[in-house]
């Protein structure tokens, strides 16, 4: 909530609460992608998986909102299903 100059608060606009952001939201995407890969440099597959798992937990905790986390899990899961489906029809 934001505070007005007189100290009163601005109520959020009525309507559904904002959900998971699926529009571009990362500043300098190429730079971020580079950092993501660099974090994995020199790691074998198992260590890379472990890093990803820790990263997921850190970010999930930052988000916190169970509804958004549930949406994110569904989006990630559906993307895997799409990819699998595409591969099998190639």
């Amino acid at each position, binding site marked *: 909530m934001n505070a007005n100059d007189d100290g009163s608060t601005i109520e959020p606009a009525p309507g559904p609460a904002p959900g998971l952001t699926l529009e571009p939201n990362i500043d300098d995407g190429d730079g971020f992608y580079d950092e993501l890969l660099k974090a994995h440099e020199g790691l074998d597959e198992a260590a890379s*998986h*472990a890093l990803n*798992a*820790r990263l*997921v*937990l*850190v970010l999930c*905790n930052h988000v916190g909102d169970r509804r958004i986390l549930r949406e994110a899990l569904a989006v990630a899961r559906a993307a895997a299903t799409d990819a699998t489906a595409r591969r099998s029809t190639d």
Partner: protein
Amino acid sequence: MLEARYDTTLKLYPYARVAEQEARERVRHPVVVVGGGPVGLATALDLAGRGTPVLVLDDHDGVGVGSRAICFARRTLDICDRLGCGQRMLDKGVVWNVGRVFHGDGEIFSFDLSPEGGQKNPAFINLQQPHVERYLVERVREEEARGAPIEIRGCNRVSGLEERGDHVVLDVDTPDGPYRLEADWVVACDGARSPVRGFMGLGFEGRVFEDNFLIADVRMAAPFPTERRFWFEPPFEGAGQSALLHKQPDDIWRIDFQLGRNIDRAAELATDKVRARVDAMLGEGVEYELEWTSIYTFQCRRMQTFRSGPVLFAGDSAHQVSPFGARGANSGIQDAENLAWKLDLVVRGLAPQTLLDSYSAERSHGADENILASTRATDFLTPKSPASRLFRDAVLALAKTHPFARPLINSGRLSVPCVYDGLSLNGPDALAGGPTVTRAGAPCPDAPLADGGYLLARLGGGFTLLTIDAEAPERLVDEGIGVERLALSASDGADTSFAERYLGTSPSAVYLIRPDQHVAARWAAFDETSMRRALSIATGRTGA
């Protein structure tokens, strides 16, 4: 021929021939409890205390070997206070509050159960199950001496059961041969392998887990603190994937090792092998005796319904969980207290038989909660897939430095009583500003009173109308069911916890409290019509 299935350590109810074995006519008993373990004994004590005659049949003559259940929760102590043996358990038991979780040799997390004070009983005590059974039998003997209608028959094994409309015929084997008796109601407290469930061909649905756990109870005068210590990937040789160390009375320590799947039970139980594991854990030069060893696996499952006509199931016969969280014996004792007052009212003809369906609904709700918590703990302790293992290890790796990951560590979520939210016996929850902890369906939390006593001790065993700064009649009878008033004022609390737990922001409150100390309904002021209706709902005479 009656063969013992296990050795007994305490002969609490040796076999004694009774006249009924020779009687030409079968004797009809109002209630027969099958099984003299903690759940059967608690059910019987509660019923007899209310004046309903009860006969307990047990296929042995006392308590089996081994400590078995060792963690007894506050709710169990509260119930046992009502049954008259809570203080004995508390005096003998080891009170503990601190739990520490280690990963390898580093501590990653600890918890302290003591901050939530203001209650007579501690969050947990450790006490070997045989002690609990002994105290319950002592109470049975005291009740018998007082003339209460309670009887235990040892070495009386139920070998068959036949439903005959309004009653049940039981075949009973004894050292002197078989006899038959009849019961209006049977309460099957005969354990996880329940023979009664078997006779009735009833199922037991759920998950069976394959990991083996080794229990080694050792006797030693060790300087370890009275804490629950749990290790993931313990640093000591041969300890398996997890280990637990927890103190019991009489210098006995429970040690538990997770051995994994596909093990050779006999080889693992060899004394040398057990001692090698314990030596590695305790370190060089620690002297101890092995008191009891056992290997167990476990299941998380329950019967679909805990009532089948005149037969009711309670404790392990109805539901089973993993031991992580101490939800086995503790939930069984809650079954007993939920069932006893209802069965008493039904036997007296004061409530319809359908009240017993609410026993099944409420306690299967509790079992589901326990099974969920226990299954989740098990999935954390024994990851079943590479992904499950990956995230478990990630949580442990982060937890040491980052507090956010610590609540995700699950070495067993400790037993708490369930709230019967939304179930059929709840009346109006009409106390504006009332705390959620005392909403309709919740077990009453204890609170210290200014006179030095505690609230729960004042509630008694019947229906209570607790008024806080509100007027109401001292006593009220509705179709034979009495309600006694307990009149208190906010200022009767020894501190603010009484008001915080029962008033919230309301200036006054009226609670209708069930005999098992769960809240049936609550209001800001007494209204006779609404109260009578809530009582009728709470006793199954009216639908909500």
